[in-house]
């Protein structure tokens, strides 16, 4: 018990007081700490978030512009065309995209992320983006983000010109585990796109999926690799096993492990927006969602996801109100 208490004392001095992130070995110590230590660990992660990020919570909505038929084989994803998933290919047109942005703004969000299931965007998709982003900016008071897979430098420049302020491209898994998750592209290709995005001036949103069968050591490795990228935002997804995918039969992540992961990621990324993304409803439920918001999380996706449904945004907003956590206003960076 004293070793575990020492761990928290050291983390308090290093991360809370000095703002210095935990390194990989320290993250691993947090991830392997006992259940008894969890309440204290979450409280420390919350203190770190409050000190280095503040009380505000960033609220975002997402929509799938192009669903299904993806040539990649990300083993967690129901949108891969390589698996026998029931998800079929469909495109959203520009009026529907604007409507989705309006729904997102009406839910209290300041951020709207347009997502496409592709390896990288082709000219048809970039053209749809040009038209769609312009139409959204004319009709809706909301920041526009995008997630369109791997980019070329010209495509990065195009997105900057369109006024896309943040780009999402997840590492998804630790470098050492990535070949077990994806075989059609490499972890390094993802890293390269992230570096191009960061150099462009767009905010980099780079997250991951946990609970895919990785070891706890690989989870610590992943947190350290994300921290090395210095992203503006890290969306944290918990595996929601999808029918027909190679990971379709994996169990849900244990809720205590999920909360420990939230706290560990906060201590690895003290100044970063740490967002609840997919899978929290199943992995954590209502009580766990609250615990995570009091354990390092400072951003949420509200409403539905890309192919699955989320909670009623009113429930999330009521929870934030209950926790005295103000919603981040539009155009104000955390």
């Amino acid at each position, binding site marked *: 018990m004293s070793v575990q208490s020492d761990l928290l004392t050291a983390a308090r001095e290093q991360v809370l007081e000095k703002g210095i992130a935990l390194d990989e070995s320290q993250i691993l110590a947090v991830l392997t700490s006992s259940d008894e230590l969890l309440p204290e660990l979450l409280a420390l992660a919350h203190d770190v978030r409050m000190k280095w990020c503040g009380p505000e919570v960033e609220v975002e*909505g997402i929509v799938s512009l192009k*669903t299904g038929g993806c040539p990649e084989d990300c083993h967690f994803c129901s949108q891969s065309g390589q698996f026998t998933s029931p998800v079929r290919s*469909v495109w959203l047109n520009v009026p529907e995209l604007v409507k989705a942005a309006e729904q997102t703004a009406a*839910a209290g969000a300041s951020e709207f992320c347009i997502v496409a299931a592709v390896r990288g965007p082709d000219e048809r998709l970039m053209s749809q983006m040009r038209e769609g982003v312009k139409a959204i900016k004319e009709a809706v008071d909301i920041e526009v983000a995008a997630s369109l897979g791997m980019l070329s430098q010209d495509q990065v420049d195009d997105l900057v010109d369109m006024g896309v302020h943040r780009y999402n491209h997840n590492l998804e898994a630790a470098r050492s585990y990535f070949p077990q998750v994806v075989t059609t592209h490499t972890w390094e290709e993802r890293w390269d796109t992230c570096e191009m995005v960061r150099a462009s001036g767009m905010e980099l949103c780079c997250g991951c999926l946990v609970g895919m069968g990785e070891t706890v050591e690989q989870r610590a490795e992943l947190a350290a690799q994300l921290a090395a990228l210095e992203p503006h935002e890290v969306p944290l997804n918990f595996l929601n096993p999808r029918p027909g995918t190679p990971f379709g039969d994996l169990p849900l992540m244990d809720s205590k492990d999920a909360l420990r992961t939230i706290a560990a990621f906060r201590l690895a990324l003290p100044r970063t927006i740490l967002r609840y993304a997919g899978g929290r409803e199943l992995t954590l439920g209502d009580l766990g969602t609250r615990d995570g918001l009091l354990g390092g999380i400072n951003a949420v996706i509200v*409403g*539905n996801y890309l192919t699955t449904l989320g909670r009623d945004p009113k429930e999330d907003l009521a929870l934030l109100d209950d926790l005295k956590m103000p919603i981040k206003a539009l155009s104000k960076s955390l």
Partner: protein
Amino acid sequence: MTSYCGHCGEPLDAGSHEVCVRKLELEPPRFCADCRRRMVVQVTPASWTARCSEHGEITKPTWS
């Protein structure tokens, strides 16, 4: 008449679909209830639309 499970596509009278019913609280149906065809489904932040080539389109708001 509804004959097929929207989640797994199997006939409703073939075994229990309790798990499927729970899953459909957090995901839209993927199979047509009338003919079990895979539907084209679009999820948006506040609703979903599922279209069967034979039996038409259903749109359901998930919150208002």
